[in-house]
């Protein structure tokens, strides 16, 4: 009998123990022989060889310079990254350091109190950064991530060799651009390579820049809080430009089916005369193109619209992504996390990234041997005014309404005015800026 009771107690202890240990435990920064180990959750597509090897170069340089800090990475990309970040935050098991967005993309997590405000560290070196990079990210001016760059989400790249071949010059107006379409298509090329299968590209890389022209920052500020409406001509006129481009077959065929990256391939393989994407594509172009190609790729903004009451000849800019740290980190662990955050976005990491084709947020002179396209991007950013990127200032859920509406508009199922009206209806009822 005693034997049976012992077995029963043993079984219960084993069962309870199993459940307890199966529940897991948040991993804490480990200190071993003076080496601090940090778990880092990073946003990286490991299948993108250029990005993966560029990032590894940074990590190797950091480890060489900081032998007392060891970084252990967990890599995810696209939605899986955001899913894990969100679920980790809910479970109270965030990594020590994580990749974050300055706007609303990771706003639920950064606004939850789970991420540390970096201002106490940043205040000591804020003069090193471009002012736009250190714009407030939280309701009370908090900065949760140190941006690695200031991003232009709209660049209209051109292949000047193809333009010479076709006897074209970069168009000054929308009308001239559309007129070039027939010449380009007849020669067998794509007028404007763009992919919008995921839905965000059209909004982020073109519509935002067009709204900066047709409305400007003041108008979008007013629309956010309800003093203007997305049904207004300022927004609808920008939509009409996209519709006109689509109807005139200016975009890549099947643009709304194409996965992100298809347009880049078409431009690199010289099947397209123009290519609209973000400035971040400079790193990919630097990695994928030949030296000869660098010389005949130019950076422009979209040609002038018939009316530009907002910011003429503008792009759309936003503070870039970067690393932040878990609010639970204190003392040596927090300092170690900052070492990496600052290395990544600061002068040391930026010098490495500048050679890889990135234009950093930190204000350092570009190295003389910087890639040609990085220099072109720097010139572009230095001379081009910027408006807001819509998805950086409006709720992410609203983008789930706007992006499909843009696709439906191109398919001809809704008019530009209906897109504006329906997005306005959603914003008025749901967007956090209006509440």
């Amino acid at each position, binding site marked *: 009998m005693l034997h049976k009771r012992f077995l029963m107690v043993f079984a219960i202890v084993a069962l309870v123990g199993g459940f307890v240990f199966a529940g897991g435990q948040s991993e804490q920064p480990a200190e071993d022989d003076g080496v601090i180990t940090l778990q880092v959750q990073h946003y990286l597509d490991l299948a993108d060889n250029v990005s993966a090897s560029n990032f590894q170069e940074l990590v190797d340089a950091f480890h060489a310079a900081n032998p007392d800090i060891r970084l252990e990475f967990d890599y995810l990309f696209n939605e899986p990254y955001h899913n894990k970040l969100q679920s980790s935050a809910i479970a109270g098991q965030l990594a020590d350091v994580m990749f974050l967005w300055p706007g609303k993309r990771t706003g639920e997590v950064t606004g939850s109190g789970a991420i540390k405000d970096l201002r106490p560290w940043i205040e000591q070196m804020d003069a090193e950064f471009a002012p736009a990079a250190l714009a407030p990210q939280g309701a009370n001016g908090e900065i949760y991530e140190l941006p690695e760059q200031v991003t232009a989400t709209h660049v209209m790249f051109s292949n000047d060799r193809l333009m010479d071949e076709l006897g074209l010059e970069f168009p000054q107006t929308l009308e001239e651009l559309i007129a070039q379409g027939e010449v380009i298509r007849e020669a067998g090329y794509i007028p404007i390579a763009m992919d919008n*299968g995921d839905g965000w590209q059209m909004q982020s890389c073109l519509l935002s820049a067009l709204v900066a022209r047709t409305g400007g920052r003041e108008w979008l500020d007013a629309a956010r809080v309800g003093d203007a409406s997305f049904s207004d001509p300022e927004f609808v006129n920008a939509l009409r430009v996209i519709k006109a481009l689509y109807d005139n077959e200016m975009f890549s065929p099947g643009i709304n*089916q194409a*996965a992100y990256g298809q347009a880049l391939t078409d431009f690199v393989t010289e099947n397209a005369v123009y290519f609209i994407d973000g400035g971040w594509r400079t790193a990919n172009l630097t990695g994928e193109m030949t030296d000869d190609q660098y010389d005949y790729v130019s950076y422009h903004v979209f040609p002038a619209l018939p009316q530009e009451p907002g910011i003429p000849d503008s792009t759309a800019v936003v503070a870039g992504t970067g690393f932040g740290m878990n609010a639970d980190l204190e003392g040596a662990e927090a300092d170690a996390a900052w070492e990496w955050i600052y290395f990544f976005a600061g002068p040391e990491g930026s010098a490495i990234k500048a050679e890889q084709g990135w234009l950093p947020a930190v204000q350092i002179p570009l190295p003389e041997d910087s890639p040609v396209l990085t220099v072109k991007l720097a010139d572009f950013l230095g001379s081009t005014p910027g408006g807001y990127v819509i998805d950086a200032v409006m709720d992410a859920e609203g983008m789930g309404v706007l992006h499909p509406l843009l696709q439906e508009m191109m398919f001809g199922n809704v008019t530009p005015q209906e897109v504006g009206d329906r997005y306005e209806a959603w914003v008025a009822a749901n967007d956090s800026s209006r509440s």
Partner: protein
Amino acid sequence: MTASREKKIAYGMLVGPSVLIYASIIIFPIVFSLVAGFTEWSGLGVPEFVGLKNYTRMLSDPVFRLGLRNNLLIVAISVFGQIPFGFALAYIIYRRMVRGHDFFETMIFLPITISAIVVAKLWNQIFSPAGLFTQLMRIIRDDPRFVLSVFEDRTFAIVPILFVILWMYTGIYMVIFLANLQRIDPGVIEAAVIDGAREHQILFRVVLPQMVNIVFTTAVFAIAGSLKSFDLIFAMTGGGPAHYTEVIAIYMYLNTFKYYNYGFGSAVSMMIVFLSLGLITAVQSVFRRLEARYV
């Protein structure tokens, strides 16, 4: 301790762990989703009770209704496509109506052994704007801007996905039917042949009545599987363009994990459960009648 008490303790010890595990990974999430479905909750902070608001919002959302329509089409292609087609293939192989039946059996079953993600990427490589079929058609038609416009049609964008689903999952039903056909006593069929029965009489009078229960089981599998369809479609189109190929599971995923509406997403997940139960109950009642007639 009495023998009966000892028996109870022994049962408890043997069954208890399984019940606990089942409760924690099946019952608890369902109950949790049911409760969360009545709240507004971003996943962080305190949920706010909102009653049936999530359900009314869901039912009035055209995107949900489009997803529901697509799901019902998938149910239809599964129940009225995969099952009859799977049975027909199994019957052809079972009755040795073709040569090389082992080869056909392997080929038909092959798609189900491949990951849904790989299948999705494979078909994308064929039909995407840069895909093999598209490039081929551009050459044949001498039209460098040719793309498959069906993907951009609100009504028919789901059709290519239905085709892939039919191609992919028919094999599993074929194997289930084949295994059960092989359990039929060959003597019964031989007797029918000796009695002069024709092939259609063997099929409808001898074989099919013995398959009613299996058809019911496969129909339940098909319905439950169809309503939770996610991986293949998400990898193929992500529900796009413009929600045209969205199904309820993708709608739930986007609302829950992309827009942080955990309460709303829970209500959508409960809707999938309710729809499954409703459809399975309907199928059960149909099969009870068939059973009464044939068995």
